[in-house]
């Protein structure tokens, strides 16, 4: 094994990319009758759109020969292998499936996932972790930050432009009211925002090739990670239905109606 410093200079960095399997954004969500969660069985799933952007960015770095290997990671039951397969078809080199199922999967949150990523980053000697800024199912926006904290690595969140210069990373961040450019040192964690790039398609020839790429199956326990959750879901409710409005003819009517409703 070469010294860490030397590996980076020769552009042989390894990137871990997180890919989450989520309910497709076009599907109308239905809450389970017992209000413990949403119906997922048989529902169309796809890769979280921000994770697609993360994969694209990693693959671009690889195409520019700035990194050596892109590893796609997903946590969940057997089906997440489809999501990893998509990442492999987009250009990732291999996959790691961290198997979490049943009750553990239902309660799997950002903290557990970031523990897994931190452990994997050490195990795989990764130099860069690229994640989506958030997942469209729980909208947490925490995994990237937590992973950086657990590893004590610098973080470049909400990235809309990433430039790798030797062992430095220039990240343009989307912040309230504008853009912020920062320079951080590798190893680092980057989370992808919407404008970072346009993800490529997973084409059929690449899907076929991806079938030959390797996906390693690991359990959280193998990584020494405890995935038990400290949160308890009390109930999940549908958003209240919007009440239909009424049309009024005149200003007088409007005032009357508002008075009736007790607004004025």
């Amino acid at each position, binding site marked *: 094994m070469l010294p860490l410093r030397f590996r980076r200079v020769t552009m042989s960095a390894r990137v871990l990319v997180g890919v989450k399997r989520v309910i497709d954004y076009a*599907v109308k969500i239905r809450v389970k009758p017992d209000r413990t969660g949403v119906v997922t069985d048989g529902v169309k799933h796809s890769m979280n759109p921000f994770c697609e952007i993360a994969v694209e960015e990693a693959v671009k770095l690889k195409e520019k020969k700035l990194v050596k290997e892109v590893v796609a990671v997903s946590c969940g039951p057997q089906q997440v292998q489809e999501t990893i397969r998509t990442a492999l078809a987009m250009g990732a080199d291999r996959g790691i499936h961290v198997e979490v199922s049943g009750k553990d999967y239902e309660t799997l949150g950002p903290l557990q996932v970031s523990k897994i990523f931190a452990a994997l980053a050490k195990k795989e000697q990764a130099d860069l972790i690229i994640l989506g800024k958030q997942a469209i199912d729980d909208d947490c926006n925490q995994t990237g930050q937590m992973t950086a904290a657990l590893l004590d690595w610098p973080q470049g969140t909400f990235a809309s432009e990433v430039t790798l210069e030797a062992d430095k990373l220039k990240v343009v961040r989307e912040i309230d009211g504008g853009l912020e450019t920062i320079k951080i040192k590798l190893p680092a964690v980057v989370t992808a925002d919407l404008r970072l790039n346009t993800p490529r398609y997973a084409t*059929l020839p690449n899907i076929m090739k991806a079938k030959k790429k390797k996906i390693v199956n690991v359990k959280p326990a193998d990584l020494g990670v405890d995935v038990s959750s400290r949160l308890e879901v009390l109930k999940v409710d549908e958003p209240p239905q919007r009440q239909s409005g009424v049309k009024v003819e005149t200003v007088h009517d409007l005032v009357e109606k508002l008075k009736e409703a007790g607004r004025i």
Partner: protein
Amino acid sequence: MIGAYDLKFRGEYNRHAQAWMDSVPCQVIGSLAMLSTEVSVLLLTYLTLEKYICIVYPFRYLTPGRRRTVTILVVIWILGFVIAFLPLVCKGVFRNFYGTNGVCFPLHSEQPETLGAQIYSIVIFLGLNLVAFLIIVLSYGSMFYNIQRTGTQTTKYTNHIKKELTIAKRFFSIVITDSLCWIPIFILKILSLMEVEIPARRCVGALKAVQAEHVAPQVCSTRSSSSTLSRITTHYSVYPRDKDPRWEGVEMERFADEADVVIVGGGPAGLSAAIRLKQLANQHEKELRVCVVEKASQIGAHTLSGACLEPTALSELIPDWKERGAPLNTPVTEDKFSILTEKYRIPVPILPGLPMNNHGNYLVRLGHFVRWLGEQAEELGVELYPGYAASEVLFHEDGSVKGIATNDVGIAKDGSPKDVFERGMELHAKVTLFGEGCHGHLAKQLYKQFNLRGNCEPQTYAIGLKELWVIDEKKWCPGRTEHSVGWPLNRNTYGGSFLYHLNEGEPLVALGFVVGLDYTNPYLSPFREFQRWKHHPSIMSTLEGGNRIAYGARALNEGGFQSIPKLTFPGGMLIGCSPGFMNVPKIKGTHTAMKSGMLAAESAFSKITDENLQSETAGLYIPEYEEAFKKSWIWKELYSVRNIRPSFHNYFGLYGGMVYTGIFYWILRGKEPWTLKHNGLDADQLKPAKDCTPIEYPKPDGKISFDLLSSVALSGTNHEHDQPPHLTLKDDSVPVAQNLAIYDGPEQRFCPAGVYEYVPLETGDGMRLQINAQNCVHCKTCDIKDPSQNINWVVPEGSGGPAYNGM
């Protein structure tokens, strides 16, 4: 003048088109254009004739005197004025002649030309101009011939002839440019008279080429400007990319791969064929590569059916389906059939032996069943590729089918390539199975290519709409099956309903409504009939307090026995609902579709694996499938019920059909020696709107009945928005000119997803068609029912479409 108006309206022609065509300047410019063209044509003819006489008969001194020339010129000018201004004077006959015939506006108008105007323009364009043109050409031909001949023989009159010759040469160049301009117009006019379809692009291209050389450019230039108009259809199947400058230099090479069998469509038929092939391969220890492409993002996500499944074919295919956990959870326990009137329900006894008897069948969520079939197929080593649609049939040089190509991705809405553009992939096979489901778009091409429908009747169709509800547990009777006919449809509209109580862990019912697409009233809306039907007292009582969780729609075949096309052709076979094996009175087609896939697999297997096989065509031809099909129980089953659907085409409609079924089916078991005919294409059945009464539908109450858009939202339908609409129009102007003008826009009503909308033009007068292709649930009804047969459904980017969960 036209140039000035062109500048004014540049880039926004659509907005002003109608107003401009009706305006006075248009009329004036039109008539001026006509005047100058006709006068120049007549003058040219006259001058040519004069030169002709001068050169060919130089000794006769027939050269007209000054007076005669003046008279002739005056006559020509008068004639020109009459021709040009006659349409303006006789408004009654010609109406808006210049506005509609395209002289001052390049587009096909929404108001067709009147008969008088048509005859007039034919007489002028084809009669007068063609005659003049022929005279000019013949005269010049003859002149040059004479000059060649006499030039060598005599020098006496050389000087005289030389002078004439230079003039003649000058005229000749004028005539050449003139004829270059007119020839395309003559050809187009003749073609349009013969009702040949002219792709607008080519026409514009031809005229554009002419424009550069034209002596009187106004006529041509106005016509060519249509290319700047915004199009409805931008798909490359209508506007080929090889001539599109935006596609220059784009890599169009496709990656190709080889399989033994490629199957288009991962539904019951395609997956049954795949499973059977791999079963046989494993049994005979042969290597066999079977690939299935499916346009849905996951197997079963585009499947929609009732569904009451007859497990015959399944038991033949996978005898241990129970142990393998097939999702057949609800055996039919109770069977109800009734005729509905607005308020009442008249129960009809289901005698054993009637096709409606469902004893032994299962109520299923067919999408889940198909997903399970997919798992079985994958376990056997079938390669499934959901999310990739077959968009093209590939052919060998000998004309046999070579395989398919999947769709390209990354094309923008305007038809140009995006940065992420990726070409589709070619999948070659020894034999390709087409199981696209009802009215598949590749099958549609194959019918033409191999004339597969030459010996059968046109397919007839129906549209089925379906919802899933979670109802009050007290009203839930798992295994109950209810069917109805009658209200809200009239007796001459074929259709009916189903309501199935499913046993899927929660109090679930599947309900739906089917309407025969041979209906005649363009005001009928299958969607709203369905919504109205749910308010029938006997149905509403079940649904009250419940929650709708899913919605979807799909066309289905009803042609049955009479409409089965030829099933085999070199390199390919048709399976499942693509050719159409639906048993209409049973309202079941899954078992026949599965069986057809199995038969195709069995017939193909021995030929594919025979290493010594001498095939005449590069793609294997397997007529054994068709023979096996005719010996199978599908054939017998479809034969026996062949007359039931067409028996509804009688004055008494529904009641006549039921009496016929009672007598002939129940007593004779379909053994009657005659076969009734269907009514022909569903697209031809609509009556003009003026002959029909608009149907007043009640407003949805938001509890039992719903509006269209909230329904479509429940289907999970989505398409990448920045892609060319996959509902392509052969001609963008037809919807407004025909469908709206004559049938009051029936596509707004028969589309169950709100894809088609007529919206007012921005100028406020007239309408235009808007296609909301993202909403499309891939039901194919528009392609079937469009009265002008102008809509061609093609596949969108793979994985687009509905995302049904067990529909």
